[in-house]
C-alpha cells in the first residue's frame, strides 16, 4: 500500500504534441481552479458558505487537461466534487461561488448547492451526489448522440470510490456493449472518503484493473500532469467520435484537503501530503512552461488576471442578495410549479 500512496508518474505515457496556446490555456485553467477553490475554502472559514463542500485542490490537472481536450457540445457529468470540472468548462466563477453562498446570482439560484452544479449552456449536465449514479446517465447522453448521429462525447468524472458501486459496472458493460461515445475518467485520489481505496478494493488500480472485464484498454496516467491528461483524453475523444466506443482512464492524483469540509484528513500518513505537494500540478506545470522558454512575466500576468476574476466574483457574490424566496416552489414539475393535485 505504501507504494500506492507514493506520487506516481502513471503507467501510460502518451506523446507530447500540444500547441503553446493550448498549454497556456491549460495553465490559466489550473490557476483558475486553484484560486477559485482556495477562495471557496476561505469563504467557508468566514461562514459565508454554508453546508458542505468537496474541493479539488491538488486535482486541477485532471479537470484542466480534460476540458482543454473537449469541444463545445461535449457533455460533462460531474460528481459532488465538481466545482473544478464546472469551472473548467467556462462557467463563470461568480455563478459557482454565488451558488455555494446561496445567493440569487448563483448558477441555480441556490436550489442545488455545491454538490449539484449544473450549466447546460456550458455542457455541464449536472453534478451528482449519489456515488456512481451518473455513470449510467452519461451512457444515456452518449446513447442519444449515437442515435442521432451527433459527434458529441459525454465525459463522466468519478472518484476511486465509485468503482466499487454496482452502477459503475453496469455502466461500463452497457457502454462497451453498445460502443457508446462516453469517456469515463476515474480520479484516483487514493481515498474513498476517509478510507484508503486499496484497503477496500480487490485490485491495485480501482479503475484500470477493471477495464479488461469490459474489453477495454487498461489506462493509468499521471493525473497531476495536465499535458498527459490532455493527450490521453484527446485520444479517447477521437476514439469515441470515430465510433470505437468508450474509454476508461484512471488518473492518479491527490487531494490536498480532506474529503469534505468536515474532514481534516488526519488519517493520512505523515509526509504523504508533502510528497504529493512536490508534484503539485500547478507548480510543476509552471516550471515546465518556464523551462521551455515561456517568460515568467507571461505566467505572472495570467495569475494576476485570474486573481482579479476571482476577487471580482467574490465581491459580486458578497453584494448579491440572498436567493429569492419566490423560487422555493418553482420547477418541481414542467409546468413550473409544484402542484401534484387539482
Amino acid at each position, binding site marked *: 500500500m505504501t507504494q500506492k500512496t507514493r506520487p506516481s508518474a502513471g503507467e501510460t505515457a502518451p506523446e507530447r504534441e500540444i500547441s503553446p496556446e493550448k498549454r497556456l490555456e491549460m495553465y490559466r485553467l489550473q490557476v483558475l481552479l486553484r484560486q477559485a477553490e482556495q477562495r471557496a475554502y476561505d469563504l467557508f472559514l468566514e461562514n459565508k458558505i454554508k453546508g458542505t463542500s468537496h474541493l479539488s485542490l491538488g486535482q486541477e490537472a485532471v479537470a484542466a487537461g480534460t476540458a482543454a481536450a473537449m469541444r463545445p457540445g461535449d457533455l460533462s457529468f460531474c460528481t459532488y466534487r465538481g466545482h473544478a470540472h464546472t469551472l473548467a468548462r467556462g462557467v463563470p466563477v461568480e455563478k459557482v461561488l454565488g451558488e455555494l453562498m446561496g445567493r440569487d446570482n448563483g448558477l441555480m439560484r441556490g436550489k442545488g448547492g455545491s454538490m449539484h452544479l*449544473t*450549466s447546460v449552456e456550458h455542457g455541464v449536465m449536472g453534478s451528482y451526489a449519489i456515488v456512481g449514479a451518473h455513470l*449510467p446517465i452519461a451512457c*444515456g*447522453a452518449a446513447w442519444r448522440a449515437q442515435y442521432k448521429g451527433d459527434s458529441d462525447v459525454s465525459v463522466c468524472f468519478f472518484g476511486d470510490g465509485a468503482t466499487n458501486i454496482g452502477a459503475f459496472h*453496469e455502466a461500463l458493460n*452497457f457502454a462497451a456493449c453498445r460502443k457508446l461515445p462516453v469517456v469515463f475518467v476515474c480520479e484516483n485520489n487514493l481515498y474513498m472518503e476517509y478510507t484508503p481505496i486499496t484497503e477496500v478494493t480487490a485490485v491495485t488500480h480501482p479503475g484500470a484493473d477493471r477495464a479488461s472485464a469490459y474489453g477495454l484498454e487498461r489506462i493509468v496516467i499521471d493525473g497531476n500532469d495536465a499535458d498527459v491528461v490532455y493527450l490521453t483524453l484527446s485520444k479517447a475523444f477521437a476514439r469515441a467520435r470515430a465510433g470505437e466506443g468508450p474509454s476508461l482512464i484512471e488518473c492518479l492524483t491527490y487531494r490536498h484537503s480532506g474529503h469534505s469540509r468536515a474532514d481534516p484528513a488526519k488519517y493520512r500518513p505523515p509526509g504523504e501530503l508533502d510528497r504529493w505537494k512536490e508534484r503539485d500540478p500547478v507548480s510543476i506545470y509552471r516550471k515546465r512552461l518556464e523551462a521551455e522558454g515561456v517568460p515568467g512575466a507571461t505566467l505572472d500576468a495570467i495569475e494576476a488576471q485570474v486573481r482579479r476574476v476571482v476577487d471580482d466574483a467574490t465581491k459580486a457574490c458578497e453584494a448579491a442578495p440572498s436567493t429569492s424566496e419566490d423560487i422555493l416552489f418553482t*420547477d418541481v414539475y414542467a409546468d*413550473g410549479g409544484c402542484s401534484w393535485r387539482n
Partner: protein
Amino acid sequence: MAQLTYREAVARGIAQEMARDENVVLLGEDVAKAGGVFKATVGLFEQFGPKRVLDTPISEQAILGAAMGAAMTGLRPIAEIMFADFLGVCYDYIANEFPKTRYMSNGQVSCPLVVRCGNGGGARFGAQHSQSVENWCMQFPGLKVVSPSSPVDVIGLLAAAVRDPDPVVFLEHKSLYAVKGEVPDGEILDTLGTARILRPGRDATILALGMMVPRSLQAAEALQAKYGISCEVIDVRSLVPLDTQCILGSVARTGRVFTVEENPRQLGWGSELVSIIADEAFYDLDGPAVRITTPNIPLPAADALEDLAIPSVDRIVGMIHRSLTA
C-alpha cells in the same frame, strides 16, 4: 373498434408513440427480440428495429440511468423494469435522480421519460414478484405515477405519459395483461391526472386502482343486487397528478368513502387520499373513511394464501356492507 388484450394495448400504445415521434425509444430486459416476458412489447422490434428497441443486460441501474441521460438530452425513452419489485435495485433513479433534477438545476434540465413495470399480484409469484409498489413511487415531488385498469386506458395514458415533460412511472397490472376490452381505431390520447367514474352511485364512493378496479365494479354490482346499496366506483388511474376534484365531488354526493388498495396497508396510496378527504371533505362524511387493503404482510406464493391477502370481491362486499349497516 377492436377487442384488444391489456398486453396488446401496451404494444399498440408504444407503437403509436414510436410512429409519431422518432425520439421515442424503448429499452429493457427481453423487450426486443423476445417481445417482453409478459409479451407486452411483441412486434415492436420487428416494426421499429434494433436502433429503437433495445434489449439490455440485467442492469436496472443502467436501464434507468441511460433512460435519464437520453431524456435529459432530447430523447423520449420508455424504459421497462420487468417486475415492479425490481425498482428496489434502481430506486436511486426513482427517488433521487428523475424527480429532483429539474428543481436542483433551477429548471435547466428536464427528464421526460416513462418507466413501465409489471405491477401487482395474483400470479402466485411470491413476495418479490407480486408487490403493488405504487406507494413506493408516489412520495417523491417531481415524479408522476399512473396505473391503468383497461386496454383503452393503457393506450391513452401511456401516450400521455410519453408526451409528458416530466418523468412518469407507469404501472401495468400483471394480472390484467390477458383481460380484453374495446379499443377504438385511430390515435388514442388520454390526460394524466384524471380519475374516471366507471359506475355512478348514491350511497358510497369506492376508490380503486389497477386490478382492484374490476373487483370493485363486481363488488358494486353484488352490493346493489344483494343489499340494494348503490356504490360509485372511481378508477383513480393517476396517483400523481391526483384528480382530487373528482374524488371530493363524489364523496360530497355519497357521504361515504372506501379505498380498495392492493398495496400493503402501511402508508398505502389510500392513506394519502383519506387524509385529503379528512382534511377537505370532513363535513361531507356520514361515517368513517375505510381502507380495504392487503394486510401488512409480504405476499405469499400459494394461491390459497395469496387470495386471502389481496382484497377479493367478497371482502370488498363484506366490508362495505358491514360498514354501511353498522
